[in-house]
């Protein structure tokens, strides 16, 4: 029973009670039209056995203005009795912006007909899954309502937007054996001249250094080129709520997630082996992998992650760095909270090369801060704390990108790497 039916029943009982208390038979007669109305509603109410509805959900995605538009279309087919009055509605998704259509719609269907519910919402990133679709069928007067939950499963994942980053020329301490684009500091089959050694049987003749051979009778010399191989790269993404800042629909974490996705894409495009650790709840660790499959894994993981306020993850010091291969290049993406610098000596102690990309929370929040003396002082204090934290990390010979998220990341990364030994001098 819904509120209409309850109101009607209350009116009928009120009239009957009034008739008894006031000895007014006319009031009892007055209930008859109401009883007939209620009776007609009960007789016409749909029953569970006669309702045969099936729902089908289709989901389409397309990118619009830096955001992903997700169109959901639900087709409801009726193969049972005619339903003169029903409503179909879908569960709203938290944190999304509905741009077209509605989540609820009334309809009436004859047997064999179909109705549609269509809506579009826009989101930046996320993982969305639907299991069921809700239908409330009622009698023609809308008195007796029956709620049904029809299976209509679908799922869609919206990975963070990939920003194009120019390929880096990295020079890591250690490379893997597979051929790649990073100079491996040993002779092999590259393009850059590396050195000359004595000829070994089996060396290709086109690599013989004829000039040196001519100067040394009965001796042959072979030219060597620097081997170009791939590297192991690990990404650590800070997904703690305490380092996140929310501004309307945008958040600082979205920028971090986008940076992680873009960097993973560029490293994998260069055939490197990439792993990912998301320091949040749940903690996600993707072990090293190559190619499009690994990129897809990383994007799926980034689509699902939300900033976590789990206190057990508040300390950055406990990040399980052992999952990364030894001598990997580790890129940490974190806005940094107090004492987060303690992670970096650990990373250096394990022999990792490290690069910190730190989205600047103060710059991000600047536009929303009130312009008064207290805010200015607070901003200066936060700025000093942050600079202190960063200087402690820089003392470990770790390049730091203090990233204002309104600026493109690509030139900053290129500039930071150009000043360090991580990038090749070429």
């Amino acid at each position, binding site marked *: 029973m819904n509120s209409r039916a309850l109101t009607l029943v209350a009116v009928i009982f009120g009239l009957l009670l009034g008739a008894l208390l006031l000895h007014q038979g006319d009031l009892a007669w007055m209930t008859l039209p109401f009883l007939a109305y209620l009776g007609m509603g009960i*007789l016409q109410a749909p029953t569970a056995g006669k309702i045969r509805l099936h729902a089908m959900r289709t989901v389409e995605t397309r990118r619009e203005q830096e955001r992903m538009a997700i169109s959901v279309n639900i087709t409801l087919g009726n193969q049972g009795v005619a339903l003169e009055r029903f409503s179909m509605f879908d569960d709203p998704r938290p944190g999304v912006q509905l741009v077209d259509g*509605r989540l609820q719609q009334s309809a009436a269907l004859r047997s064999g007909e179909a109705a549609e519910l269509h809506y579009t919402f826009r989101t930046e990133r996320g993982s969305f899954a639907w299991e069921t679709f809700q239908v409330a069928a009622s009698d023609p007067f809308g008195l007796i309502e029956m709620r049904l939950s029809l299976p209509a499963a679908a799922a869609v994942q919206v990975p963070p937007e990939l920003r194009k980053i120019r390929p880096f020329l990295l020079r890591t301490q250690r490379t893997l054996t597979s051929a790649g684009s990073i100079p491996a500091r040993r002779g092999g089959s590259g393009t850059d001249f590396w050195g000359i050694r004595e000829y070994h049987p089996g060396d290709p003749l086109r690599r013989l250094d004829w000039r040196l051979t001519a100067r040394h009778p009965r001796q042959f010399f072979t030219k060597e080129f620097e081997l170009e191989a791939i590297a192991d790269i690990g990404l650590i993404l800070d997904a703690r709520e305490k380092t996140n800042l929310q501004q309307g629909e945008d958040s600082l974490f979205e920028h971090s997630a986008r940076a992680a996705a873009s960097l993973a894409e560029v490293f994998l495009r260069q055939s490197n082996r990439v792993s990912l650790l998301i320091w949040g709840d749940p903690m996600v660790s993707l072990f090293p992998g190559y190619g499009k499959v690994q990129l897809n894994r990383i994007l799926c993981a980034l689509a699902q992650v939300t900033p976590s306020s789990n206190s057990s993850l508040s300390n950055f010091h406990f990040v399980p760095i052992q999952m990364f291969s030894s001598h990997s290049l580790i890129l940490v993406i974190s806005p940094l909270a107090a004492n987060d610098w303690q992670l970096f000596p650990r990373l250096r102690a394990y022999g990792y090369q490290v690069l910190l990309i730190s989205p600047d929370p103060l710059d991000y929040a600047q536009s929303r801060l009130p312009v008064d003396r207290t805010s200015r002082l607070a901003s200066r204090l936060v700025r000093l704390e942050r600079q202190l934290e960063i200087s402690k990390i820089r003392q470990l010979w770790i390049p730091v990108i203090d990233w204002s998220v309104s600026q493109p990341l690509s030139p900053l990364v290129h500039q930071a790497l150009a000043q360090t030994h991580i990038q090749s001098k070429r």
Partner: protein
Amino acid sequence: MTLQRFLKWGTLTTGVVCLATGYGLVGQWGLLAVAGLVWLAGMLAAGWSMVVFVVLVGLATVGVCVGAWPILMILGATLALASWDLANWEDFVADGLPAETVARFEWRHYTYLALALGSGLLVAIIGQLVSFQLPFGILVLLAVLMLLGVDQMWRLVKG
């Protein structure tokens, strides 16, 4: 003006006219004024149809108690119910229902409504005109039977 709106306002106005006539005939000018105000509220405030319905049934009850002609009061209360139903139907139709679907189901709705209220009103008026006396015990028995019957009907429908 759509048919739905015309019928909704028509039933509300006729219902209030019935009540007002009943009050006028017994000289209850205060009640007549209240009925007029409720009509005005019903015409202006679209989302208050349930309140208007309950108030009009209350006014009809008061009218019976002050001695107004019962048939006019019953008619007024029944038309208030019709107006409430039509307001609800109008809301349902306005909720994105295609025009062809509305056209297909509209007359069926009116037919159901007319059947339900017409039959109830007819029995009530006949009951008013034909009077006979029943012993109280039989009346109680009939009421119990009716309640059981409604209960059985409910189980039949839901089961």
